[in-house]
């Protein structure tokens, strides 16, 4: 028999479980990409921050997912973004693209469309002119189309 007290505790248990559930922190280092990131940074530490990655939380279609990257950088000859590397956690080829900017770029922003093979995290690594590496990551859900299409 469900008494109001039992109902209260079962509700409380559900709430606690939700709070304690170890969520995948999108900003935690993506372990599987660590060796690749190391190759890019040549051992230098990868720091989180200064980079913003805008990508839909739920992709309309994995074949084409729009994203936007912005870095906090003055883009002067003394202080600018040298490269931006886009990495995928679960695509068959993890390096999606490498973009070379420089002081002539004016604004450290970029937009493109990527392919995501499945739900996963995307990581962008920014190399600055002072040799430091900054990053941002985001989690994207990618689902199959409701109706299969082999037209």
């Amino acid at each position, binding site marked *: 028999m469900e008494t109001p007290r039992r109902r209260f505790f079962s509700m409380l248990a559900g709430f606690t479980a939700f709070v304690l559930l170890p969520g995948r922190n999108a900003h935690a280092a993506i372990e599987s990409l660590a060796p690749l990131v190391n190759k890019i940074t040549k051992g230098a530490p990868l720091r989180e921050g200064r980079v913003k990655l805008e990508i839909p939380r739920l992709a309309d279609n994995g*074949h084409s997912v729009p994203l936007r990257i912005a870095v906090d950088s003055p883009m002067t000859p003394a202080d600018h973004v040298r490269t931006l590397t886009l990495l995928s956690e679960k695509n068959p080829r993890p390096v999606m693209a490498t973009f070379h*900017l420089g002081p*002539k*770029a004016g*604004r450290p922003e970029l937009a493109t469309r990527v392919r995501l093979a499945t739900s996963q995290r995307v990581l962008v690594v920014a190399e600055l002119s002072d040799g430091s590496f900054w990053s941002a990551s985001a989690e994207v859900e990618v689902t199959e189309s409701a109706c299969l299409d082999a037209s």
Partner: protein
Amino acid sequence: MPREAKRGEVIEIRIAIQHPMETGFRFDLMGRSIPKNVVNSLVVRYNGAEIFSAEMGSGIAANPYLQFYTVAEASGALVFEWVDDSGERGSERATIAVNG
């Protein structure tokens, strides 16, 4: 991209290339693997100096679209050159008038 700008102004450049960006993981109706063929390199030069370049892989969506920026320094031409895995080259040229 704009046709004219003020000197020192940051201008937005957008490029869209019609290309299947074949991943190499697909099969045709006969079960044969379709070979990988993606636009792997795009280089943008402004009055001869490289201002932007991209190395791309199959992770970039078909019919690649890129939006980036540069500083309008002097009147002249922006030349966009790209190559795909099969060696096919494409290019586009746009002029800009810079005032001030």
